[in-house]
Every structure is written in C-alpha cells, then in structure tokens.
C-alpha cells in the first residue's frame, strides 16, 4: 500500500463510524467524520472527549436534519455522559444497547420520529439525571423500572403515544423535579401518591385519557409550581384542599369537573394562571376571586356558572385575559371592570347579561379583543369605545343594542373584525367605517340600518367579508367596491337596494360568495370574468333583474 497508513481507530472511533453509517442525510453535516483523513475523532463535529483521554464523553448532533437510525454501536461509547440527538428526523427504535452507556447523565432524543417501546434498558442508566423523549412516536407503557433511576430530575415523555397507567412507583421519588407527560394516551387515575414527589415543581399530564377524581390530598403537593391536568376526563368536585397548593399555574380545563368553584381558590394569591374552563362547574363566580391581585389569566368559560359577574373582579389589577363566555351569567357588566388597565382580552359571549356596556370599559386601554356576543345587552354603543385604540376584535352581535353606529368607530384603526349583527341598530352606516383599512370582516347584518352603502367601503383594502344583509338599505351598490381585491364574500340580500349591478365588481377576482337576492336590482348580471360562477340563488328575488336562470325576466330556456 502506498497510501499513508492511518493509525487504526480505537473501538470508540469505529463505533462512531458505525453510528454515522446508520444515519442518513449525513453528507453535509458529518463531513469531518472521516477515519481515512482524520483519525482524531475527538475533533469531529459534535464529539467531545473527556480531559486526558480519547474517550467520547459527549455527543451533540442536535438539529442537523439527520435521518436514519441510532446504531446499536452506541454501546461502545462506554464513557458517554451526554447524548443529544434532539431535533432530527431519526426513526427506528432506541437500541437496547443504550443500557451499556452506564455513565450517561443527559439523554435527549426529543423531536424525532422514533417509535417502539421505551426500552427497559434505559433503567440501567443509574447516573441519568435528564431524560427527554418528547415528541416522538413511542408506544406502549411507561416502564415502571424508570423509577429505579435514582438521580432522575427531568423526565419528559410528552407528545408520544404512550398508553397504560402512570406507574405509581414514579411518584415515590424525592429527586424528580420535572414530569412532562402531556399529549399521550395514558389512562387510569391520578394517585394520592403524586404528592410524594417532594422535589417536583412541574407536573403536566395535559391531554391524556385520565379518569377518576382529583385526589383529596392534592394540597399536599406543596412543591408544585405548575399543575396541569387539563384535557382529561377527570370527574368529581374540586377539593377544598386545593387551596393549600402553592402553584403559579393551575390548569384544570377540559375535564368533567362538577360542583362549585371553591371559595378557597381566592386565597391562592400565588396564582398567575387559573384555568377552570370547559368543565361542568355550577354556582356563582366567588367574589373572593377578586383577591387574586397577581393573577394575569382567568379562564372560567364553558361551564354552567350562574349569578352575576362579581364587581370585585375589577380588583384583579394584573389581569390580561378574562374569559367568562359560554356560561349562564346574568345581571349587568360591572363598571368596575374598567379598572383593569392591563386587560387584553375580555370575552363575555353567550351568557344572559343585560343592561348597557358600561362607559368605564373605555378605561381598559390595553383591550385588544372585546366579545359580548349572544347576551341581552341593550343601550347604545358607548362613545368612549373610540378610546380603545388597541382593539382588533369587536363583537357586539346578537344583543339588543339600539341607536346609530357612532362615527367614531372609524377611529379604532386596528380593527380586523367588526361584528354588530343581529341588534336593533338604526340610522345610516357612517362613511368613517371606510377608514378601517385593516378590517377583514365587517358584519352589520340583521339590524334596521337604512340609507346607502357608503362609497368609502371601496377603501377597505384588506376586507374579505362584508355582510350587511337583512337591513333596509337602498340605493345602488357603489362601483368603488370593485377595488376590493381580497373580497371573498359579499352578502347584501334582503334590503331595498336598487339600480344596476356594477360591472366593476367583476374586478373582485377573489369573490366567491355573492348574495344580492331579495332586493330591487335592475338591468343585466355581468357575464364577464367568470361571473357566471354564481348560482341563481345569488340573484333571486329581484323581479327586474335579467340573468341566466329559470324564472328570470330574460330566462333563456324556451317556454312551453
């Protein structure tokens, strides 16, 4: 041989070459893993050797778009302490041989496409303190032998397809700090033993199939900072004992919890997030919740809560999200909510609220979304609403509001949705609505609006949906609407609109839903630019309108 003779690779060098060989898509990223031209594997990308030796201590090949599988040759990296392959496209199973890497402390295989069971051999890794297998396709049960890893601090198995029960032994671990099991198909119930996790701060079983009740002794889990048992099938009442928790996040949403909201929750001032939404809770919102002056997010929507909105909620000065929608709340919207200067989203939709929108709401200057749809609210739109310059979503639909649409609405320049439909609004549509250049959806339907469609609608350059049906509008369709390049839906039916249908609307190339039925239009429907795609239903009820449908005054089908 005339080639310069490379010194023979050690077992570990050969193991690395085997590991490379079982990966795919290595061409660009593992160029320097080349035993012919560089046998110093400690210098290869992602390889770290321990001091004073040529033994691989860490292998970090995260987020390199690697495919293929993890080679069983991993067993020959006998001194490996850290293996990070997260964020690739690795498939296949975890090789049982991983169990020979007995010095492994950090194992991160998250965000790959690995499948099969979690091998029992992982339990042989007695030094392991971090195990992350999140977001793969692992199946089968959580091996109860994982509880034999004495130093495990982080166990993250979220977003897999794991089944069976959470092994109770896992709870008898004073070292474990982080238990992430969200997004699997785990069954069984929460065990009272979970509070034996005296060092745990993060407990997340969101989105599994857990049943049974919240353990009565839940308040003993005093080290928990985050308790997320949302989106399971947990039943029963919220135990009083929950008030002893020290958590910052309590997420119980999307279960089948019944009974009342325990008053004691109002003493949990460490709560940053309280989410009891989408359960079957009854009774009133305890006014003591107003004590939660450090809470930023309060979600109680989707229950069967009754009674009034406690004015004390106005004392929750850090609140940015307040969702009370989809309940059976009655009474008025308390003016005290105007004290919530950091409020970003207020959703009171689909309750039985009555009375006006209090003027004080205009003090919530951070408000971005306001939804009161589907109540019995009355009165007129408060003029102060124009001060809510951050509003992007305003929905007052399906109430009993009266009066005219204030010109000042056109000043809320960031609106993308304005829905005033199904109320008793009268008068004309103010031309200032045309100033809402970011508006995507405008719904003024089912009111008593009269007058013309403002030509200024032609400046709603982002608009996708306009619905002003079921009013008493008259006059013609402004030809300026032909400028609306994003308009997908134009609903004008059941008004008294008349005149000729403007040819300019054939320029609205995005338009695929048009309804001008039951008006008094005359003339001929334009046929150009595929305008014939609209069915006769778009046009019926205009006796003097000529088009290509049976029954039209210029019906082309021969009459017998």
């Amino acid at each position, binding site marked *: 041989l005339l080639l310069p003779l490379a010194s023979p690779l050690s077992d570990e060098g050969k193991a690395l070459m085997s590991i490379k060989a079982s990966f795919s898509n290595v061409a660009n990223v593992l160029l320097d893993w080349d035993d012919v031209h560089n046998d110093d594997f400690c210098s290869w990308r992602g390889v770290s050797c321990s001091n004073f030796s040529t033994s691989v201590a860490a292998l970090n090949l995260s987020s390199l778009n690697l495919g293929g599988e993890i080679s069983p040759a991993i067993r020959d990296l006998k001194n490996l302490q850290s293996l990070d392959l997260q964020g690739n496209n690795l498939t296949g199973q975890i090789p049982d041989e991983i169990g020979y890497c007995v010095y492994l402390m950090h194992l991160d295989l*998250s*965000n790959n496409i690995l499948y099969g069971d979690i091998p029992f051999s992982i339990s042989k890794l007695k030094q392991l303190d971090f195990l992350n297998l*999140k*977001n793969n396709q692992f199946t089968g049960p959580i091996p109860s032998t994982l509880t034999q890893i004495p130093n495990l601090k982080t166990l*993250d198995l*979220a*977003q897999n397809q794991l089944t069976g029960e959470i092994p109770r032994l896992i709870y008898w671990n004073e070292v474990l*700090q982080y238990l*992430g099991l*969200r*997004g699997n198909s785990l069954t069984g119930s929460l065990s009272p033993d979970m509070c034996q996790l*005296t*060092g745990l*701060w*993060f407990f*997340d079983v*969101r989105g599994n199939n857990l049943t049974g009740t919240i353990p009565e002794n839940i*308040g003993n889990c*005093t*080290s928990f*900072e*985050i308790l*997320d048992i949302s989106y399971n099938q947990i039943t029963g009442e919220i135990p*009083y*004992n929950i*008030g*002893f*928790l*020290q*958590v*910052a*996040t309590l*997420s119980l949403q999307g279960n089948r919890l019944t009974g009342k909201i325990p008053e*004691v929750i109002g*003493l*949990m*001032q*460490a*709560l*940053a*997030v309280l989410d009891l939404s989408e359960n079957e809770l009854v009774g009133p919102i305890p006014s003591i919740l107003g004590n939660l002056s*450090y809470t*930023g*997010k309060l979600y109680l929507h989707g229950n069967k809560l009754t009674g009034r909105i406690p004015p004390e909620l106005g004392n929750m000065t850090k609140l940015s*999200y307040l969702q009370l929608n989809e309940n059976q709340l009655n009474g008025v919207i308390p003016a005290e909510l105007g004290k919530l200067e950091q409020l970003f989203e207020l959703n009171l939709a689909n309750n039985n609220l009555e009375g006006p929108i209090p003027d004080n709401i205009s003090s919530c200057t951070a408000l971005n979304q306001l939804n009161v749809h589907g109540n019995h609210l009355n009165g007129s739109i408060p003029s102060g609403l124009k001060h809510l310059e951050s509003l992007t979503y305003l929905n007052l639909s399906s109430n009993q509001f009266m009066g005219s649409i204030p010109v000042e609405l056109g000043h809320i320049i960031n609106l993308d949705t304005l829905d005033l439909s199904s109320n008793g609004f009268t008068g004309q549509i103010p031309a200032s609505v045309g100033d809402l250049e970011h508006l995507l959806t405008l719904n003024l339907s089912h009111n008593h609006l009269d007058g013309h469609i403002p030509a200024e609608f032609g400046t709603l350059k982002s608009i996708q949906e306009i619905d002003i049906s079921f009013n008493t509008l008259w006059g013609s369709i402004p030809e300026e609407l032909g400028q609306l390049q994003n308009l997908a839906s134009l609903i004008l039916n059941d008004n008294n609109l008349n005149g000729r249908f403007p040819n300019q609307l054939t320029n609205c190339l995005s338009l695929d839903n048009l309804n001008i039925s039951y008006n008094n239009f005359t003339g001929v429907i334009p046929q150009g630019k595929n305008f014939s795609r609209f069915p006769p239903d778009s046009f019926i009820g205009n006796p003097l309108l000529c088009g290509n449908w049976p029954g039209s005054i210029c019906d082309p089908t021969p009459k017998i």
Partner: protein
Amino acid sequence: RVLSRRRLGGPGSSPPTCRSKCGKCLPCKPVHVPIHPGFSMPLEYYPEAWRCKCGNKLFMP
C-alpha cells in the same frame, strides 16, 4: 428548591418576596415567567411560574 412561602396554619399562597434571592443585584422583583412545555398548539398559552428578576437576569425564588 421547595418553595417555603406557606402561611402557617391555613390554606392560601402568595407570590415569592424575592428578598435577597438575586445575589447582590437590586432591585429583586417577582415576575411571571412562561415555561415552554414544548410542542403546544398555536394560540395556546404557556404555563407560568414565579421567578425573581433583577435587570434581565432571573433567579429562583
């Protein structure tokens, strides 16, 4: 790292005081910090925990 802010005797909790939790850095204030549980749905909020903040540094309560 067990948080010891339990009031004696009854239920309830309060945010950490952060008294001398930021080393020599002042002022040391409690803040909400989102904890990324990984792979959540779009628009879904993250769970939050308390940390002590001084300048742009975070410390355990």
